[in-house]
């Protein structure tokens, strides 16, 4: 028989499964690689990436692995250089949005009543502001710039997070264990931080991935709508250039596939990390009561 004995030490710690570690590692490696590229872009790619080196929409070749863009510049170099702005805008505005949305959502859901009403109306107002048109107006007022893009995206995309968090907190705070903690006399901060937040943390992480994706997405959208300063090279502006110059009709898939793939890869990497983070969280969630696997029946005769 497989009578198992476990030393208590085994049970402590968080214990990621190997696959998760791989995924997390892969994610971290990709992000780090992009980060490194962003930092070293100038070194790796010559400062003159925008220089024309061949015909418009030149095909990929040994010299130019990703072909040339609509100005005959090397796509590989452009994509490398574009990493910087895209990373900056995506990450910076996500931090702003998730922090804001998390705090507003948790506070509103937890305290309820008037606090909730006020915060939710505020959220409503922010929620109804159509973000893209507003960005366009702001870009027109203050001129397009990366800093403005970060601020606008960050300050306008916290609302979904806030709403999702609130609704989750709303039902969590009714749970007996939360009420027990309140009955203990724990401060609100403590109840929130130790009981409510851990329950909604997974959702927040899942959500921040959503926000990150939408931040990078908004950067690309702003560029797409011509609201990124022209001298900026970002994944978004590369896609926008390709679109404006009918790359698809020109058969130049290489002009828009790589930057789009970079966006996808970048967000995917973040999600890999987030997913394994979430798994750390959900390893703490008790087992599902129904599940795909069947019960394991050990046959005594088989052993």
């Amino acid at each position, binding site marked *: 028989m497989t009578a198992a004995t476990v030393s208590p030490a085994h049970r402590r710690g968080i214990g990621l499964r190997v696959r998760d570690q791989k995924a997390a590692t892969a994610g971290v490696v990709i992000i780090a690689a992009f980060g490194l590229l962003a930092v070293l872009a100038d070194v790796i790619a010559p400062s003159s990436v*925008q*220089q*024309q080196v061949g*015909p*418009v*929409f030149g095909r990929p070749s040994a010299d130019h692995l990703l072909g040339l863009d*609509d*100005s*005959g510049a090397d796509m590989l170099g452009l994509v490398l250089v574009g990493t910087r702005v895209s990373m900056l805008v995506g990450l910076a505005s996500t931090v702003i949005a998730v922090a804001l949305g998390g705090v507003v959502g948790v506070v509103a859901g937890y305290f309820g009543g008037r606090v909730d009403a006020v915060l939710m109306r505020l959220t409503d107002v922010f929620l109804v502001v159509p973000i893209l048109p507003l960005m366009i107006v702001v*870009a*027109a007022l203050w*001129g*397009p710039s990366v800093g403005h893009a970060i601020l606008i995206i960050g300050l306008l995309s916290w609302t979904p997070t806030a709403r999702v968090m609130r609704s989750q907190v709303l039902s969590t705070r009714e749970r007996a264990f939360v009420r027990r903690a309140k009955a203990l006399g724990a401060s609100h901060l403590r109840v929130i931080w130790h009981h409510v937040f851990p329950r909604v943390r997974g959702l927040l992480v899942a959500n921040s991935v959503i926000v990150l994706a939408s931040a990078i997405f908004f950067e690309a959208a702003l560029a797409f709508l*011509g609201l990124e*300063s*022209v*001298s900026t090279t970002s994944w978004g502006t590369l896609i926008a*250039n390709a*679109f*404006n*110059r*009918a*790359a*698809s*009709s*020109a*058969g*130049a898939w290489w002009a828009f596939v790589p930057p789009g793939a970079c966006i996808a890869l970048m967000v995917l990497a973040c999600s890999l990390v987030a997913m394994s983070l979430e798994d750390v969280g959900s390893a703490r969630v008790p087992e599902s009561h129904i599940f795909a696997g069947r019960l394991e029946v050990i046959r005594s005769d088989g052993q």
Partner: protein
Amino acid sequence: GCGSDGSSSNGGGAGVLRIGDASSKIDSLNPFVGHNGFATATFRVIYPYLLQYDQSQNIVGDFAKTTAVADGGKTLTFTTHDGAKWSDGKPLTAADAAWTINTFVRLKDGAAATFAPYVTNIVKASAPTPTTLTVEYSTPTATAQDGLASLPILPEHIWEPMAAGRGEQLASFANASPVSAGPFKLTQYTENQFANFATYKGYYGPAPKLKGFGFQFFTSNDAMLSALRSHELDVAYEVPPTAVSQLKDDKSLTVNNVAGLDTDVLGFNSSSFQDEHSELKDLRVRQAIDLAIDKKSLIDVVADGSGMTTGTMVPPALKQWNNPAVAATPFDLASANALLDSMGFARGADGIRTVNGRPMSYKLLFPSVATGAPRVVTEVVKQLAAIGIKVDARSSDFPTFLQAIYGPENHYRNWDMMITDYAFGYDPSGYLFSWTCSQLGGNNLAAYCDRDYDELFARQSTQTGAERVKTVQQAQLRFAHEKPVIPLYVANAISVARSIGNLPEMTSSPLVVVNYMSKTWIEQATIG
């Protein structure tokens, strides 16, 4: 051939010519509001015009069968078609034409401002008989016939009630199902999406060969070209040059890549309020900048080779008006640098030149809709960097761009350079007019104001024939010498058609860009 029934897949939607465009759309069906190319093209086919241009850019009769010039050019008398009818059955007579012209004149500072250039110097029009029209001018006017070739004749019985007083109601009239009398009538219209036309049986002129035609408007070039490939379209206008090489490979398509009128220019702020960078007013600096811009390479990169260089604001396609002596300054980086060096503008550590301790770093404005933008801008920025000039380029939508150019009280403050594009009709007046002092705060985006130049402009507008040509060329010379703007390149007009039937003269008509389609062209087109 998806999305359409069998008959349309072998070209033409059952005798209907289907035309697509991804850069523009009809802005309004109301002639008092709509003024862009597609709106004009629509008016040209649904409304009667007194005169029109033929394929060789000559003015010929339309509703007017004959034209007589009298009184030293101050009076024009036309005999018009007899027995013509509006599409609602009411008679179309010279009285309609007289009413229209008089109304445009009366409201030229208000509701009919878009037509103001075309009614210059008109005193009044009158229709002594149903087939006779007389138009009186205060002075002999060079652009008289060009103007009348640009004025649609509107049915008086429809528009008269709205034109009362200051004509305030005119602007908000949708004109969704226009009462018309041209070769075609509008049968179906959805704003921003499409317009369908069918032949108008009561047309006074020769019946068109097509059963009908239509415009479909796209927001993306790729969507339009995809529709062309999937046989949903017969003709695509304003095709981006980058797509040309692929389209050429398709044997069933004909690419028409012809000289166009759309000119991209780099302009300097000539306003006296621009005093921060006074060196930009020095002709030598402008000269250096002109030398440093490699226009050939611009055309290669921005237009994939589909364009022409020019040294003047009147595009070479207008052969009889363009001054061939004013050619584009050839690219010469060494001389440009030498010129700047000789002026003592040494390069700083960052490679940027300084003038009196201030870097040659300039703010450049451009509208995102300019042809070739933003690529043309980034190229110019790159090229100027090679002579140690730094440019901070800012794009915006067109209205904002204008706003920024004019500045408060039309003082043209706070910018140094701009890049924009323009295209006018066959007559040179538009190209010249734009840089006159009277257009400050209007078409004049460089704040250029020169008395000599204005005088030349005024002179040519009263001249005709070879005399006028000479003055127009002189004006170009003067302008090129002052260099308030540097023409970058003239974009070709590119359209692609399915090889179906006979689409005449597409190859030579720059009108493809101006009005998308001339009436003669559509009248003679056949398909199937």
